[in-house]
């Protein structure tokens, strides 16, 4: 063995480590690109999350505010209590149709007293400002306390959904030409009333605790009852799924031998997790709704259906 065979410099292309060759530069650039793609993917995912949450919040937040109108209503005994005996049974005969004009009249008086300029001269023309639920609200209060009859009582009633929408920017002046439920004069009056403090916005407790409402009284809608429903649903699911699920997983992890039956159970469990919910819906339809039990429920079936 001679000295020449192992002298290191003979090796070709012994480039210095302190110089990056072009290939390494290229590889590092591709490394950076790859990393940027990863960051971009995560940013896109998070951006979607933020977008989703902000649009939900922006679209939904206005529901927590609702427009109210302060109206002193003269509870005219001649209209409400025609017999004059304050008998609750007779009072009940006066429907919301009796009350609605009283509220409208009350509002018109407010307008006149405040000296607001408006083209609307008749009480009836103010109808569209007031929620259809207002009459029921006043009536309920009168039935609860007949002594109010004959007095002028201050009520805080809901404004109609058009007025509410106008103040929240959902209803626009140039789009209401064909709308039977609101007109420009009424919107002008709304603006004036808002300035006078008669119309104002407040927190919508009814939205959180109230129940569903019909389309004609959208301003009265609330989530309370539906939330209760969701809550019960959660409870039922928890009570059913938790014990069975825990027991099944204990069995599969701790006891089950590796055999066909165990395999079958495992495949079934993971498959059930992926079965479209609509198919479960059909199972529910078939088992519960169309079964004879629920079509013709005996008295105890409340626990079942």
């Amino acid at each position: 063995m001679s000295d020449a065979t192992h002298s290191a410099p003979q090796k070709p292309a012994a480039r210095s480590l302190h110089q990056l060759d072009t290939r390494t530069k290229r590889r590092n650039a591709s490394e950076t690109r790859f990393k940027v793609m990863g960051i971009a993917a995560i940013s896109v995912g998070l951006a979607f999350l933020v977008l989703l949450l902000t649009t939900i919040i922006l679209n939904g937040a206005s529901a927590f505010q609702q427009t109210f109108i302060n109206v002193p209503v003269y509870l005219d005994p001649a209209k409400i209590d025609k017999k004059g005996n304050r008998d609750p049974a007779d009072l009940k005969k006066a429907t919301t149709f009796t009350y609605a004009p009283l509220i409208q009249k009350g509002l018109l008086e407010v307008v006149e007293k405040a000296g607001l300029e408006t083209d609307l001269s008749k009480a009836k023309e103010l109808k569209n400002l007031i929620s259809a639920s207002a009459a029921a609200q006043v009536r309920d209060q009168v039935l609860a306390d007949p002594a109010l009859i004959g007095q002028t009582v201050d009520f805080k009633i809901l404004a109609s959904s058009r007025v509410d929408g106008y103040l929240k920017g959902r209803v626009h002046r140039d789009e209401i030409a064909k709308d039977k439920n609101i007109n420009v004069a009424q919107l002008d009056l709304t603006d004036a009333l808002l300035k006078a403090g008669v119309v104002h916005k407040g927190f919508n407790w009814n939205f959180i605790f109230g129940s569903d409402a019909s389309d004609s009284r959208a301003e009265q809608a609330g989530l309370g009852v539906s939330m209760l429903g969701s809550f019960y649903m959660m409870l039922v699911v928890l009570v059913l799924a938790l014990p069975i699920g825990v027991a099944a997983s204990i069995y599969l992890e701790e006891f089950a031998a590796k055999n066909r039956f165990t395999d079958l159970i495992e495949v079934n469990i993971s498959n059930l997790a992926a079965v479209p919910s609509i198919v479960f819906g059909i199972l529910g339809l078939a088992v519960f709704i169309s079964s004879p039990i629920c079509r013709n429920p005996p008295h105890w079936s409340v626990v079942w259906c």
Partner: protein
Amino acid sequence: MNDMTLTERAVNATENKITARNVQVYYGENHAIKDVDVDILDKTVTAFIGPSGCGKSTFLRCLNRMNDTIDICRVTGEILLDNEDIYDRRVDPVQLRAKVGMVFQKPNPFPKSIYDNVAYGPKIHGLTRNRAELDETVEASLRKAALWNEVKDRLTAPGTGLSGGQQQRLCIARAIATSPEVLLMDEPCSALDPIATAQVEELIDELRTNYSVVIVTHSMQQAARVSQKTAFFHLGHLVEYGDTDKIFTNPTDPRTESYITGRIG
């Protein structure tokens, strides 16, 4: 291995390949390597021995900057490869690792074919210009790793399907294929049976004609069989470094003596 070649090679190989000065390694608070100075020669097998946890692997991994992949690990001091500081800011570990290959304790072939396992390094470093050259490199590497005859008919079979010893030789072939100058081996035989161990040891002895080989081993017999230089580590210190013969027959440090006579470790 006859005594004649052993001494001859030991005498001829005098060029420094790697020079380490004042190397410290910390894993967070843990000071794992303390003040290590060592000169590793070209075309020589250097063995690192010492009790478990004394820092042999840690120091080995400094030599190709594999410690960079561990977040909490910090290295100070100077390590020169051919008189160039490998911890210099300008050094790209990717280029360094092509020059300083590594073989691990547990055989870790990629879940690819035997051919692709060996071709992996040359492909990423762009060492060959065409398919024919790549074929040549793969064959040459497998021959150097003494595996060619066993696998030449099934190059497309998965590398994970080989036996443990064959897998480890495949990993050596994979490391050789990037034509490194230094080969680091971290206990390359600890997962192998005695016959496979003997084959790998024989291979290591042959590799020294072309490469500088550093091998970490638990077995003193192995160190004595394959290495010309031996470094003894203890509690993060390099206690003694010198010719293998001398370390095993006439150590200077009492700690080395206790270790090789089996009193510590």
